[in-house]
């Protein structure tokens, strides 16, 4: 039953591939996932949890060994639907350099719309719009190799936005960036959301996950928890053993709660911790 309100509908997805010694490796097992329009969902997991593999199923870069992936009702195994799927689900990858095709920023942002066969005047509009959205308008005539990591990723995001997707998937798009670049990308994500696009962020940083509407927590190819950040992060022991990047404040909160010195370990930043420790201050 296809639910018309579901943007992405994944049922019982499994992905098996052959390892270096010809053994069968199950990267994903029985994954169910649904994404609604406009949502901000984080797929959280350590390296090897299968999160990147899952990401590539979202735009048919990989096809299921078992189960189905439906994008706006279109099945990823359907050859004819391939390009419609990829226009709806845009993807930004980890390496800022290896996504930029053209020698000038605005030409690169135009690449996607050009592939869609849009008229030149419309492409021009879309490019301006997209660059403005990520705050890179003044760099439109720059050469990409002179940009910082954060700027390159913003250009990559603009390139996707110019195709007017319904979902933007960021596959560990901040992994190779310094704190400033990371900040720039997270800010761009907020702008995408305000424009009504759904955003799926793949990461191992808990601090990025706390901003989501919903989280899917992955480990060894399975979804082991899902729900709002509050719901998912309640199970603390599990978090520690999963190899995720847990903010120090959260680690401290866990220790203090176990000693009974604070009421709840649902503490995500310094201000909240201060309130917990000193409610009357």
């Amino acid at each position: 039953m296809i639910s018309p309100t579901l943007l992405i509908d994944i049922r019982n997805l499994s992905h098996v591939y052959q390892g270096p010694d010809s053994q069968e490796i199950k990267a994903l097992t029985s994954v169910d996932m649904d994404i609604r329009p406009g949502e901000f969902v984080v797929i959280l997991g350590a390296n090897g949890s299968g999160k990147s593999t899952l990401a590539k199923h979202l735009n048919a870069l990989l096809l299921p060994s078992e189960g189905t992936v439906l994008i706006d009702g279109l099945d990823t195994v359907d050859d004819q639907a391939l390009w419609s799927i990829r226009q709806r689900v845009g993807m930004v990858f980890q390496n800022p350099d290896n996504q930029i095709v053209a020698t000038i920023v605005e030409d690169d942002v135009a690449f996607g719309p050009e592939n869609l066969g849009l008229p030149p005047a419309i492409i021009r509009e879309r490019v301006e719009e997209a660059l403005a959205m990520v705050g890179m308008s003044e760099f439109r005539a720059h050469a990409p190799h002179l940009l910082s990591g954060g700027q390159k990723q913003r250009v990559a995001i603009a390139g996707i936005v110019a195709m007017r997707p319904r979902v933007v998937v960021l596959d560990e798009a901040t992994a190779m960036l310094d704190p400033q670049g990371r900040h720039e990308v997270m800010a761009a994500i907020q702008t995408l959301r305000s424009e009504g696009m759904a955003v799926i962020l793949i990461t191992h940083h808990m601090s990025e996950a706390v901003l989501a509407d919903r989280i899917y927590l992955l480990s060894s190819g399975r979804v082991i928890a899902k729900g709002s950040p509050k719901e998912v992060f309640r199970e603390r022991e599990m978090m520690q053993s999963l190899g995720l990047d847990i903010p120090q404040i959260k680690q401290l909160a866990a220790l203090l709660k176990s000693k009974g010195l604070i009421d709840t370990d649902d503490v995500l930043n310094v201000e909240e911790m201060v309130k917990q420790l000193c409610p009357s201050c």
Partner: protein
Amino acid sequence: MSILLEDVHLTYSPGTPFSADALREINLKITPNQIVAVIGHTGSGKSTLVQVMAGLQRPSSGRVLMDDFELYKKNSDRRLLRRKVGMAFQYPEHQLFEETVEKELSFGLQKQGRSIDEVHLQIRKAMGFTQLTEDMLGRSPFELSGGQMRRLAIASVIAMEPDYLILDEPTAGLDPAGRDEILAGLQAWQRETKKTVILVSHSMEDVAKLADQILVLANGKLLMSGSTREVFSRGAELQEVGLDVPQMTSLMLALRNKGWDIPPYAMTVEEAYQVICEYLGRVRP
């Protein structure tokens, strides 16, 4: 025994419309047997500075001395320099090229003309600090996982046992497990060999955990230099130049603002926990 930079300036492409000042008036001294962290905002000159120290980037003016050996003098002994200082760049696994892990580890040592026994010994020592195992020796470096390749690249530099080990963001792009492994290995290496480790880092938390001394760069200049506690107690100045203090220190400062009588810094979660427990025990017995 120390690294000395005297009035070092570095300008890229001088005299052209593309000229840029990377380093200005750098005067600093690094004493041996410690871990030094170099921090600064993006583009502050951190990478340039450590490359100058490693003898890989000639400054436009000024002197660089390592244990009284002047690095950039004409006819300075390159071989001697390579024995003194080793450097691992960002994403060092991108420089792997040998057919086997063993050859990769031996590369630098063979260039130094060491005997087969010495090479054998040094390699195993380095592997010990980077959790590389014997069975990996015959494999191709490119069969290893990302984290293993990173450890291999760093091991190949450690194996040369330089007096000064310089690393540019050794944990960049790694997950928490990988990060902890590398940092623990570096700390153990430094403690055992009593040599000097200089690392560029963006993570204030990593720096707080590991570093004895911190150099802060801003816009090509050395803004401050001092012990970890000294530097992190000047949070306001750090924030002005786009840096942060470790989260735990941030918390201590916020609590102090509310009247808590506690030190203005904490370097690790455990330390913060102890301080808070002690304070609460005192105040609410």
